[in-house]
């Protein structure tokens, strides 16, 4: 009965979301307080029902109820408990249910933390989120019902979760990524509500910024984890493949990054309003596009669970309605929000504008490279794949340009700055960056362009950020007090910018100096890679809960001193699938990475040996960016109620 309860709860949740989408919206238009007030209880009710539904599916997995088709396809009685739970979102239907759960969670969170907002705004925001929920509930119930039964022919055992997904990374990666994807529906709903209400004031920005930051932080962590997972689980030692699925999550991140910056200008100066709204719309539209590409089966990847044409058509139609509708609304209402802008080119506004321009260009280039193969396929121009060189040839120089602007822009004043301080800052930055480019690459034995440019960018950002921190903390009796007086928003920016610097160093050095060797090794053989001696001590067999493993033993030494003992595995799961588990010795300075290929004859194995310097810095940078976003939300100005007088009407220029 439990799956039926889950199904029933989902249908009730659809009903609630239908009411949520219509009644508060009408109430806001007609000025009915009670109708508007219905939004909060509806949002909470929807969360409870979706949570019940999700719990029922999890219970079906835990109870090994293989009469449920989805459980039979992705579960197995031998799976450890934590994989039984993560199997809930291991495939299409369940991951959509997770998506809906996250959406209901965000909606309820907005309902809970918006007590000080004008009731019309809250009603409209929640109603827009209700509309999105209606779309996804329908998608789930009509095309991808996870509670479908296999009766009366229920199998005795489940087909098991894809071994690639039986991993800690998969337990946390999808929920976090979804928190980010779906979290972007909040700024989207705020943008639509602002367009509908014709008001976009300081209160609006103050409320939108923390939500955007949190969603962006989740998205950052989700992408970082995805990259980390691909690195250790796929066994290729790569951390970014420009795979369409990665691009699908990276594009909303880029636009959300632009949005985070544009919102700062809108809050502080009241400018870029139309642009901010457009970015909010596009950030969410791109996360929907990502869902479409990933879930519809048009892409070849681990994430493409099923190629069911009705699903693709449904998501595409939904996407069309959301993007078309919101752009139409934007075209009709945005001109009313215009304010005349005035700022010099040496101002923070100008640099944020340039940052936004570059981010938009990067996104457009990635979008082109990601969609072109799909379009070409549909149009019959042949089956094409676009290689990483295309993406790198744009992404790398544009990112370096971003880094250059970031160093200077963050220390400029609003409106306009004097030329002399800017020149002094640039001089100091160059004084640090040029030697960094010239000398630091030698740490890895040779001088290479890519690494030199990346390290110069890192040094430039770090030097200018720290210098700014130093100067801003000078106006206090002591340095410590000065640092304490700086606001959360500023600390968040410092942290996130340093995160970018760290990630750039990691990407540049890891790309330039990683060494990889595919070799044939007999037990007792020693192979030297980048100064490390890898000795292969043979392979032993061992059994896991639902697989047989062959475990290689590698002893790694440097100059005769033991460094690490690595045990890469080759696993054969019950379903017959073979999986590689890399043996990794992680370090801040370098990773040693060993993969067992295949047995060649009696005792010899094909083995892949990697030494990857600074590769950890990439994920460390991602973590710093996310921490920065969260720290900025802690800024005390977001907790103080916005004085009513500060809320200027859209048509009046702020002071």
């Amino acid at each position: 009965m439990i799956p039926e309860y889950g199904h029933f709860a989902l249908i009730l949740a659809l009903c609630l979301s239908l009411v949520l989408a219509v009644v508060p919206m009408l109430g806001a238009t007609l000025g009915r307080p009670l109708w508007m007030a219905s939004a909060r209880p509806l949002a909470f009710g929807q969360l409870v029902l979706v949570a019940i539904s999700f719990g029922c599916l999890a219970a079906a997995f835990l109870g090994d109820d293989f009469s449920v088709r989805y459980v039979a396809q992705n579960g197995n009685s031998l799976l450890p408990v934590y994989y039984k739970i993560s199997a809930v979102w291991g495939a299409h239907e369940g991951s959509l249910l997770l998506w809906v759960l996250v959406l209901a969670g965000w909606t309820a969170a907005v309902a809970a933390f918006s007590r000080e907002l004008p009731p019309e705004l809250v009603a409209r925001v929640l109603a827009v989120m209700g509309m999105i929920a209606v779309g996804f509930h329908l998608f789930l119930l009509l095309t991808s019902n996870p509670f479908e039964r296999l009766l009366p022919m229920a199998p005795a055992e489940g087909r098991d979760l894809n071994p690639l997904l039986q991993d800690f990374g998969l337990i946390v990666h999808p929920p976090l990524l979804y928190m980010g994807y779906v979290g972007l529906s909040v700024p989207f709903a705020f943008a639509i509500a602002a367009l509908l209400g014709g008001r976009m004031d300081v209160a609006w920005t103050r409320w939108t910024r923390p939500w955007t930051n949190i969603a962006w932080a989740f998205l950052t962590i989700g992408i970082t984890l995805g990259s980390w997972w691909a690195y250790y689980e796929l066994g290729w030692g790569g951390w970014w493949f420009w795979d369409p699925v990665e691009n699908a999550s990276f594009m909303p991140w880029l636009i959300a990054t632009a949005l985070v910056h544009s919102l700062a200008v809108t809050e502080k100066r009241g400018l870029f309003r139309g642009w901010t709204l457009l970015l909010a719309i596009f950030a969410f539209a791109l996360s929907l596009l990502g869902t479409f590409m990933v879930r519809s089966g048009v892409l070849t990847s681990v994430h493409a669970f099923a190629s069911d044409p009705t699903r693709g058509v449904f998501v595409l139609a939904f996407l069309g309605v959301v993007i078309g509708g919101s752009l139409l609304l934007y075209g009709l209402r945005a001109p009313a929000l215009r304010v005349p802008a005035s700022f010099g080119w040496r101002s923070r506004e100008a640099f944020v504008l340039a940052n936004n321009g570059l981010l938009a260009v990067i996104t457009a280039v990635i979008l082109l490279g990601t969609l072109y193969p799909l379009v070409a396929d549909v149009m019959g121009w042949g089956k094409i794949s676009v290689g990483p060189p295309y993406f790198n040839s744009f992404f790398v120089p544009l990112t370096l340009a971003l880094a250059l602007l970031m160093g200077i822009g963050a220390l400029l004043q609003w409106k306009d700055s004097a030329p002399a301080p800017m020149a002094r800052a640039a001089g100091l930055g160059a004084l640090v960056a040029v030697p960094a480019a010239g000398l630091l690459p030698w740490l890895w034995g040779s001088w290479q362009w890519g690494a030199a440019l990346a390290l110069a960018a890192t040094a430039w950002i770090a030097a200018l950020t720290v210098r700014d921190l130093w100067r801003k903390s000078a106006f206090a009796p002591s340095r410590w007090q000065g640092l304490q007086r700086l606001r959360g928003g500023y600390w968040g920016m410092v942290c996130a910018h340093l995160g970018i610097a760290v990630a750039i160093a990691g990407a540049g050095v890891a790309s330039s100096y990683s060494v990889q060797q595919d070799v044939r090794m007999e037990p007792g053989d020693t192979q030297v890679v980048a100064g490390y001696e890898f000795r292969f001590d043979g392979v032993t067999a061992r059994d896991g809960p639902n697989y047989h493993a062959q475990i290689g033993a590698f002893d790694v030494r440097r100059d005769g001193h033991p460094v690490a003992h690595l045990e890469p595995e080759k696993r054969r799961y019950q379903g017959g699938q073979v999986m590689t588990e890399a043996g990794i010795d992680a370090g801040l300075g370098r990773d040693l990475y060993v993969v067992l290929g295949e047995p060649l004859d009696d005792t010899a194995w094909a083995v892949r040996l990697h030494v990857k310097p600074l590769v950890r810095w990439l994920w460390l940078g991602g973590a710093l960016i996310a921490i920065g976003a969260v720290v900025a939300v802690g800024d005390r100005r977001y907790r103080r109620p916005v004085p009513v007088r500060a809320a200027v009407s859209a048509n009046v220029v702020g002071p």
Partner: protein
Amino acid sequence: MHPLRKRRLLVVVFILVVSSIGVALATYALRQNMNLFYTPSQVAADTVPGDVRIRVGGMVVRGSLTRTPGDLGVSFRLTDGNDELLVHYTGILPDLFGEGEAAVAAGYLRSGRTLEADQVLAKHDENYTPPEVADAMKTGHAARAARDAGAQGSSAP
């Protein structure tokens, strides 16, 4: 001209120039880095240029996998049910690579009918066949059926 208008005009012209340069560059880079997908039949029919990187997909012919003793060289044949293509590769094959399974090899055609692959991709899950390979198999089998039917037709009086 009004200074504000003049500035706006400059901005618009600047955006137009920059974006058209950008679009031109992007299209050029895209063309340089596109890897077209071919079937073994298309390679056999000599419709494939020799000096660009291509991808070829099909099923790995059973019994065709051979290893070079002493190093990591392997070769195998890919089929779409109609024609076969010999593929050379040096390195470690993916986990789910196997005879009778779908695979995609990317690389350059050398001396007629051998693909010197620098990358071999296999399916990533037991029930999954890359859509390109599924299509290739379908058209390959259809071509084979048509050829057989044609052969029968011509042998008939």
